[in-house]
């Protein structure tokens, strides 16, 4: 990398908490953010999966009614996370033309789209809200953030299913290295806990059916895992050139040292069982970081708790790291948060950054019987990471054969 890129602010709203600190504390405490859905539509539509990871703090408790009215729930979460990250970074003074946004979603404004269709069917076209299009468009969250912080250096949205927000963070690297941009707000969001996405994911048998025990349903690497658990929320990072951060005396969490995107071209939903594309993404991110595989001490795995996905990721990691994999502390934090789809990579990037900064790998809950086909060193209670310069990666993979990997190094 030509100039160093550092993380100076983090923000999140998740099933574990309404901000980063409460989320991180709950994660370290081994809590689950998954619970039974109380909405009337669960019974009305006989939804086969009756639980999810709902945002711990509803967006309506944070935003004004007028803000919420003009934003899809996905954008509401995005704005909450981005405002926290921006304030955490000290609300940097930056030329608007040198400030950019790279902000992702997996699905976009699905609530807005489907509510509007219901309105059309029940009440006719005149009752379809004029804000429907800007609220449903997948670039809506990025645009909302860009307006909020006056970013005029480009506002973009990566859409690559569950790899989306990791890809957005990787995309921020090229913006910052171009020399045209000093600061990027990057991350992603999702608000898909709506009967249609749940029914659709359930139809493809991607979701856990553990309706009796929701808190135990997301169980990556466990022999009893039976699918992922939908979550909602958002994460945001403030990324900037080291030069810019140092000049304004910003606190620095970690260094973003690599980001890579590859694709499988194998199957629209199934991961490549050989893990070739995922392995290439990991290797490319490490190459950008000028790192050796032995430098990696921690991995925040994609690990969604699906039977085939967890094994495919393991295969890719073994391919890259060989025997060194046995020395890497692996955390599967979706066990606590559920799977935030287009927001997953963003909150997991934050977990990776905090793991480096606090030298503590977060736990993986619900691992009662580790799958013998996945012999990873899985962190099950908070674990101290080594002193000195250390490196960690966060993986995200998405339907469509998308692989995205980002690498962070501790910053002293």
């Amino acid at each position, binding site marked *: 990398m030509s100039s160093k890129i550092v993380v100076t602010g983090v923000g999140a709203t998740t099933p574990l908490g309404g901000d980063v600190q409460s989320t991180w504390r709950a994660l370290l405490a081994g809590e689950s953010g998954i619970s039974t859905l109380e909405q009337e539509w669960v019974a009305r539509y006989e939804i086969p999966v009756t639980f999810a990871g709902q945002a711990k703090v509803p967006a309506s408790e944070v935003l004004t*009614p*007028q803000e919420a009215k003009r934003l899809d729930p996905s954008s509401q979460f995005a704005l909450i996370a981005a405002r926290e990250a921006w304030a955490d970074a000290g609300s940097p003074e930056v030329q608007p033309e040198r400030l950019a946004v790279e902000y992702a979603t997996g699905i976009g404004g699905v609530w807005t789209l489907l509510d509007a269709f219901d309105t059309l069917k029940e009440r006719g076209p*005149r*009752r379809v*809200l*004029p*804000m429907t299009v800007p609220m449903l468009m997948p670039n809506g969250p990025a645009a909302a953030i860009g307006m909020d912080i006056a970013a005029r250096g480009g506002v973009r949205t990566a859409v690559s299913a569950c790899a989306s927000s990791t890809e957005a963070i990787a995309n921020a690297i090229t913006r910052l290295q171009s020399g045209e941009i000093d600061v990027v707000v990057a991350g992603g969001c999702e608000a898909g806990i709506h009967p249609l996405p749940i029914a659709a994911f359930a139809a493809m048998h991607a979701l856990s059916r553990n309706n009796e025990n929701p808190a135990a349903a997301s169980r990556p690497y466990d022999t009893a895992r039976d699918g992922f658990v939908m979550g909602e929320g958002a994460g945001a990072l403030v990324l900037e050139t080291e030069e810019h951060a140092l000049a304004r005396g910003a606190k620095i969490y970690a260094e973003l040292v690599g980001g890579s995107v590859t694709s499988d071209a194998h199957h629209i939903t199934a991961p490549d069982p050989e893990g070739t594309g995922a392995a290439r993404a990991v290797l490319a991110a490490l190459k950008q970081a000028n790192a050796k595989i032995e430098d990696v001490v921690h991995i925040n795995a994609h690990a969604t708790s699906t039977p085939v996905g967890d094994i495919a990721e393991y295969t890719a990691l073994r391919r890259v790291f060989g025997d060194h994999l046995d020395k890497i502390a692996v955390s599967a934090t979706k066990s606590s948060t559920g799977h935030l789809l287009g927001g997953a990579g963003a909150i997991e990037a934050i977990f990776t950054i905090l793991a480096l900064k606090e030298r503590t790998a977060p736990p993986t809950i619900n691992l009662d019987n580790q799958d013998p086909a996945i012999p990873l060193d899985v962190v099950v209670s908070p674990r101290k990471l080594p002193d000195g310069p250390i490196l960690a990666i966060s993986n995200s993979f998405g339907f469509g054969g998308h692989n995205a990997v980002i690498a962070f190094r501790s910053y002293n």
Partner: protein
Amino acid sequence: MALAQSEVLAGLAEIVNDETGIATEAVQLEKSFTDDLDIDSISMMTIVVNAEDKFGVKIPDEEVKNLITVGDAVSFITAAQG
């Protein structure tokens, strides 16, 4: 039954407040929706549709451009209620 002008104004002020957050007491007859209240065209269309529902009237699209002030809207709604 037709509402008095003051009742229409109060109802309209509630709709404007709900859509934009503008205080109901700021919604006065002589205020311009765009110049004084800073209401954009998207919010205006939402206010119109909500007013149709609330007052049981029809406000044709071609009429909306003539509703410059709050008073214009109150007069139109009052007349349309007959």
